[in-house]
């Protein structure tokens, strides 16, 4: 989320709203945002309904304990609600491609 925060002025300049989502509660996400200086909303999908709807629920095995959480993924969604760009798993760690995809069309017009 820090990577998005450091690109936030670029993204907001391109008329883009950034939203983070995880299967944490909104309260822990707020504390996480504060700790990391994140100023965009971090939404709490506790229960995982939206994560499952987006096909991103995954079972993680952590020390032999099975936990369901989201795969790391970034979607760029245009004003009509259509997905125009997506990155998943390790390729979603660095948001540069998403930032470029969202800034580029604006520069052309």
């Amino acid at each position, binding site marked *: 989320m820090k990577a998005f925060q450091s690109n936030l002025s670029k993204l907001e300049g391109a008329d883009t709203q950034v939203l983070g989502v995880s299967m944490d509660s909104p309260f822990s996400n*707020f504390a*996480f945002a504060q700790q990391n200086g994140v100023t965009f909303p971090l939404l709490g999908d506790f229960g995982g309904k939206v994560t499952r709807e987006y096909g991103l629920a995954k079972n993680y095995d952590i020390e032999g304990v099975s936990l369901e959480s989201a795969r790391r993924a970034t*979607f760029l969604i245009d004003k009509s609600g*259509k*997905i125009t760009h997506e990155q998943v798993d390790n390729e979603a760690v660095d948001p540069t491609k998403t930032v470029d995809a969202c800034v580029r069309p604006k520069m052309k017009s």
Partner: protein
Amino acid sequence: MCNKPLQWVMMFLLACSLLAPPVSQSAWAADKKSPAKAEAPMKLKVGDMAPNFTLLAFDGHDLKKVSLSDFRGKKDVVLAFYVFAFTGG
């Protein structure tokens, strides 16, 4: 009689050829998983409509509803799913 050692060598080679492919295949599969590539295909593809949702965000005082449809016709949205809070990234 004199080709008995040869038989052993042949059997050894045969055993190797039977055993080797699965081993090298699994090593290759493990290798393919580790680089920065998607682990499984995505359910939603570029060009699909993003499913609408309403979730809660906490701003320190209030819980606020945020829906994807709030931005319809107004702004592009970067929707970033992450694994867990406080786990870096």
